[in-house]
């Protein structure tokens, strides 16, 4: 089975299939016997063949959202709202059925491939375990398939690599193995949690190119978790910006990186080094502590446009601008 066989031209139908749909997704963790919300009201969707970025600072809840989608949130977490994968509600599934979606319908690419691959199991064993379990292949068929997959992600001498261990590989090679593993059972959704953050800059570009190629070849929906706005602009179709456990803005990647409407997104862009000539503008203040979010707009205390109205929490729909959680969105086009 080559990936080309399963490729349907993206956008062939008028309406491409929605693979992932999150509606008011919230995760709460028990802290000192009380549930403290980590994310609230996270809503977005990802279609087949589309790359959507989940952007935000550390601690904004993007990784927590990803783990909730995988069905692998931290111990004791309570997940609320609705989550549909390929049209099926998955939050009510039994743990066993939920686990069965992992690997086969959702692939996951982790940030640190060194620690995300087993240190004392051969790479071939890790890949064939997955293939045998999810696809019911025999060990030898799985081994052949694993070698094909490694070849596909650009790993030379795949048969030798399969016999080796993760510590024998370079960072870029490790992440290629991780990508091959995530795609091995032909999932319809791939979640990548900061897949290039741990890599050298030169390797980052290669891995991003590879992921772009794989996204087209396997025609998967990709959810790309990142704090890097450049990656968003270069690699993604749409972006969902998160702040303090909330989605604050959803727009096309071009809009988010060039003409954002939410003051927080603007702040993020101003804090990114660009041509090197202009002064960087940091966002004043700091992200509020989990559980100590302001009543109204959570960004208001750090926002230069804040008014009294911001004491009321702005909705994502019905505020002055759709898909922007702000009472005073930026409307003018800026460069």
């Amino acid at each position, binding site marked *: 089975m080559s990936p080309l066989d399963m490729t349907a031209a993206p956008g062939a139908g008028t309406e491409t299939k929605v693979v992932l749909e999150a509606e008011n997704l919230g995760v709460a963790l028990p802290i000192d016997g009380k549930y403290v919300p980590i994310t609230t009201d996270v809503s977005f969707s990802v279609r087949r063949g589309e790359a959507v970025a989940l952007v935000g600072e550390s601690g904004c809840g993007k990784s927590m959202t990803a783990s909730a989608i*995988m069905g*692998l949130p931290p111990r004791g977490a309570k997940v609320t709202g609705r989550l549909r994968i390929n049209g099926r509600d998955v939050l009510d599934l039994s743990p*066993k059925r939920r*686990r*069965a*979606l*992992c*690997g*086969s319908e*959702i*692939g*996951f690419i*982790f940030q*640190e491939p060194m*620690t*995300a*691959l*087993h*240190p*004392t*199991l051969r790479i071939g064993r*890790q890949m064939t*375990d*997955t293939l045998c*379990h*999810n696809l019911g292949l025999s060990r030898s068929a799985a081994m052949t398939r694993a070698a094909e997959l490694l070849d596909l992600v650009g790993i030379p001498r795949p048969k030798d690599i399969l016999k080796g*261990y993760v*510590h024998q590989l370079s960072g870029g090679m490790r992440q290629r193995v991780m990508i091959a*593993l995530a795609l091995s*059972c032909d999932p319809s959704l791939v979640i990548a949690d900061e897949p290039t953050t741990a890599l050298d800059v030169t390797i980052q570009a290669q891995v991003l190119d590879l992921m772009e190629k794989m996204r087209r070849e396997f025609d998967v929906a990709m959810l790309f978790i990142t704090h890097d706005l450049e990656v968003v602009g270069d690699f993604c179709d749409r972006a969902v910006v998160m702040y303090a456990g909330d989605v604050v803005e959803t727009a096309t990647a071009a809009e988010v990186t060039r003409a954002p409407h939410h003051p927080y997104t603007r702040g993020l862009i101003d804090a990114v080094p660009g041509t090197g000539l202009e002064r960087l503008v940091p966002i004043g203040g700091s992200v509020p502590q989990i559980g100590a979010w302001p009543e109204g707009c959570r960004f208001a205390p750090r926002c230069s446009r804040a008014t009294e109205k911001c004491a009321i929490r702005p909705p994502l729909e019905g505020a002055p601008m759709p898909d922007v959680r702000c009472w005073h969105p930026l409307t003018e086009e800026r460069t």
Partner: protein
Amino acid sequence: MLRYLAKRFLLILPTIFVPLIMVFLLLRLAPGDPAGMMLGDQATADQLAALRAELGLDQPLPVQFLLWLKGIFTLDLGNSIFFREPVMEVIPRYAGVTILLTLVALTLAIVIGVVMGVISALNRNNPVDRGVVTSAVLGISLPEFWFALLLIFLFSVTLRWFPVSGWTPPSAGLIAFGASIFLPALALGIRQSALMTRMMRSSMLDVMDEPYITTARAQGLPERKVIGSYAMRTASIPVLTVAGLAAGYMLGGAVAIEIVFALPGLGRMLVEAVARRDYPLVEGGVLTISLVLAVLNLVIDLLYAVLDPRIRYQ
């Protein structure tokens, strides 16, 4: 690899040299000597001197020690004063029991420790976990001879499942051998298994939070496989370290257990040989135990490389 093995085997020599010197000196510093023991209170000074000369005890200590060392390399450890036969023939009769006892105890300790540690870690902070941790603390605190007496009382005297004491060699049938060695090995292993339980529990808790466990789950592998084949593989590496220490501890602890269960092992033989001031036999016994311990530790070091491919010996 071969070079490493050769180097490790050579390193065994200095390792066992220290206990050999200590035992040699301690025996001769202690009051009483074999001649006095053999001839009794009525012996005359002439008789004692004659026997000492015959046994070579009248020579200076360094000369005696060097002669004995020379004996080790020519595989002649002298004659046992009490048995009146070569030490090299007496020791094998007893060593087998102690080595088997230690190996069975070590195996039991590892199996119990790993299983209980995993159960405990998977039930973190619930009553099952607390029960296991409490029993482990109890197990570490109990002296094994007392535990041995408890086991005899419960399983041998009350339930009559196992013999009270005595030794059945494996050649007499595996079931009878198993019945005779189970309680002594359990008594000898229980403390170490408690240590291993705690080690396995904490190492398992660490490993379960590792990203590669999340990866295994994210690949859709069932929890049974994630734990049994992905988590336990790495979590059991620290237990091996405890096993190395436990082996030494058990070889020493075997003395008390062999006496309680009346097993004809090296430990009991040594205690009797010390009481008889049977210098050559004591020295030979200590040499054997040191050698067994050194080899066991070498085997455990080699096992590290099997469990963890990141370790390469050269």
